[in-house]
């Protein structure tokens, strides 16, 4: 048997190896290109006091989490109790980004709705939901039209960003936070960033 006749077989085994490894990957998960880059600045109206605004740079000097949520988001309800417990134990400050509260809800059409009306509706819905499920956030800001979400590369809800003292994004968690990811990835990184000062 000449060696060259084994080439098709070897090529095939190489391919099969890749395919086998591919079974462990998730083709739909999109990593963030913003890791280690400065978080996009924002100045948005607060959910608790809509006539006041809050800017990203006000969190300078802190290691904190930005959690993207909405009342229509089913998966957010999975992680919410965990966030509430985290707040009770004062593990790490979490700022909420209330994302497309009104227009993101499939059941509501905002065609013809003025921005003020939409904002008022978002305040009402968001506050109601937090009262019902608990408010783990330092505060929440409202991203009515999703622009800030695009700046952060948000493509689904919930997503959570870990931001360091200089305002750089250090880690992005896609999907609901689980106890495993909290213990395994998020808190260790938080500790590391706190030590770095």
């Amino acid at each position, binding site marked *: *048997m*000449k060696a060259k*006749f*084994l080439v*098709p*077989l070897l090529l*095939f*085994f190489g*391919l*099969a190896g*890749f*395919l*086998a*490894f*591919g*079974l*462990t*990957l998730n*083709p*739909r*998960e*999109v*990593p963030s290109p913003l890791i280690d880059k400065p978080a996009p600045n924002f100045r948005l109206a607060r959910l608790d006091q809509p006539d006041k605004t809050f800017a990203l740079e006000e969190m300078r000097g802190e290691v904190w989490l930005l959690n993207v949520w909405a009342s229509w988001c089913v998966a957010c309800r999975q992680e919410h109790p965990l966030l509430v417990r985290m707040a009770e134990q004062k593990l790490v400050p979490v700022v909420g980004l209330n994302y497309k509260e009104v227009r993101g809800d499939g059941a509501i059409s905002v*065609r*013809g709705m003025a921005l003020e009306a939409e904002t008022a509706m978002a305040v009402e819905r968001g506050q109601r939901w937090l009262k019902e499920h608990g408010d783990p956030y330092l505060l929440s800001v409202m991203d009515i039209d999703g622009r800030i979400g695009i700046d952060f590369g948000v493509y689904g809800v919930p997503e959570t960003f870990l931001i360091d003292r200089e305002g750089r994004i250090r880690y992005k968690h896609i999907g609901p936070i689980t106890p495993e990811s909290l213990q395994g990835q998020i808190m260790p990184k938080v500790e590391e960033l706190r030590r770095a000062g």
Partner: protein
Amino acid sequence: MIPELGHFALILALVLSMVQAVVPLVGAQRNSAALMAVGRPAAQGQFFFILFSYVCLTWAFIQSDFSVQLAASNSHSETPLMYKITGVWGNHEGSLLLWAMSLSLWTVAVTVFSRHLPDAFLARVLGVLGLVSAGFISFTLVTSNPFERLLPGVAEGRDLNPLLQDPGMIIHPPLLYMGYVGFSVAFAFAIAALLSGRLDAAWARWSRPWTTVAWVFLTAGIAVGSGWAYYELGWGGWWFWDPVENASFMPWLLGTALMHSLAVTEKRGAFRSWTVLLAIGAFSLSLLGTFLVRSGVITSVHAFATDPKRGLYILALLVIVIGASLLLYAARANKLMGGGSFSLVSRETSLLANNVLLTVASASVLLGTLYPLFLDALNLGKISVGPPYFEAVFVPLMTPVVVLMMFGPFLRWKDDDLLAEVRRVAPIFVASVAIGVGSAWAVDHLTWRTVLGLSLAAWVVLASLRLLARRLGERAGAAAGSRLRSITASWWGMWLAHLGIGIFIIGVTMVGSLDRHLDVRMKEGQRAELAGYTFVFRGAVDADGPNYDAARGNIELVRDGRVLGVLDPEKRVYRAQGMPMTEAALDIGVFRDVYVSLGEQLEDGSWIVSLYYKPFISWIWAGCVLMGLGGIFAAADRRYRRLAARDAAAAVGGRVGAAA
């Protein structure tokens, strides 16, 4: 009760497939006529039980038995009967059963049309087919049981995905599966030949009709799928280079090369290595496609709900089947060397180039499809590879193929005079380029893409006419009738299929370069214009269906003051899942389609209407029909039946001699 019967029948089918896999192969090895004779009944018995199993599953759907998990997820009591029946294959488990049934059907066909094959060879073919069958049925039973019960049953099912409730979905999967799976026969023939050590012109002649018919099914399956996407998705696209589409296209490319390579092996005894590898390759790509659709490894609109455990099982199946085949090839490849020699300028050369080019094209599509996976596996980031890549790569690769496709038939076998042939063809070539440039200018679209497409199409058409003229001119002095009759079905098949590609190219080029699109807001009585057509909106009415609510628009199509017809696009919401769907309305013509979609209704009462003008798009489907027709003619050539009868007589003689 009935689902359990179906489940049991499937288990029996598995047992029979294992018998079919092992016993005939052992029989061929030991030259035991008794063991070899087990193949036919085992295959036929297996088919009976799989068919029974499939009917039981279909029964559960028709009866809306929602205690069967599959029916509960994919059907609804108000779903029209046709879609209850076809919903059986609109999901992973049911479509696997369809796959197994297709394979069994092909196997039975082999048992019927095989009197002319030597016993040992047939035994090996059935054995290989049995192995693949056993693999698939066991995969179904172990990881994807379609008869899984949902206890307690639910009152109402979740309905079939509205996108699949469509005539296109009735014929596309069966045709596609018959094509995909049909390459298993060419594969089994190749493996049987490798096992017996005899790979000759007779083997190639036996393989050819099976390969061609599978190719015809696959061509039809892909074309119907494409046509269905065109009118169903609402915006007139017809090919997206989606991984699952590529998974059906790659076997088609290699299958095309295989058909041509088999011709050379039959006529000249050459290309045996290529033919065997292409037969293994085409079927391997079919299996790979099955893996890609069901494993979750790539993202696709066509992918079934996925599960890495299932992916692992199919991958194991792949590794065993393809690994063993390639190992067998490596062991026997030495015997495949040699074969008829030919000079640099000959038909063999052009067909060898054809093999190479089609293989490179297929490999490139594979590269693009799997590259994101490669990079992700090596932790080098996540990218997407889509239509811009494939178009940039595929068109340059296929251009020489099309040129060669019409030059090759002019060449003689073994040895030809290049200068004479070039002189014969050069005027056609020049005329084609002239027509390409001229036509592109005539339609006011003088771009590289349009000129290339139209030149290639003109090349195909002109060269086809020249070839026909030459063929008819061969019997100088004979009457016209007898000249026509002297052309074999095989030759007509080649001629039609090649011409079909030219027609296809015209369609693709024209619609790609000249299509138009406009979105408007229409109130009753208002009109819009696109590409010389006027669309007059006559309002929208309710048009509810059995399992959906809909609004139907009424739009007059006017040109030059004459009303050409009325278009009635619908916007539907399927009640069970609340899923919205658009049903476009088409005015189909030989030289253009006019395509209208209904969007939402706005607060002021006007409707969003999308208008599309698609010139020559029917030529895409017409080209595919010609290709399929060509394949049918080629497979039906009387030569196969004549020589099969001769082989059958020889085989009988052999058996009688052996018995004596």
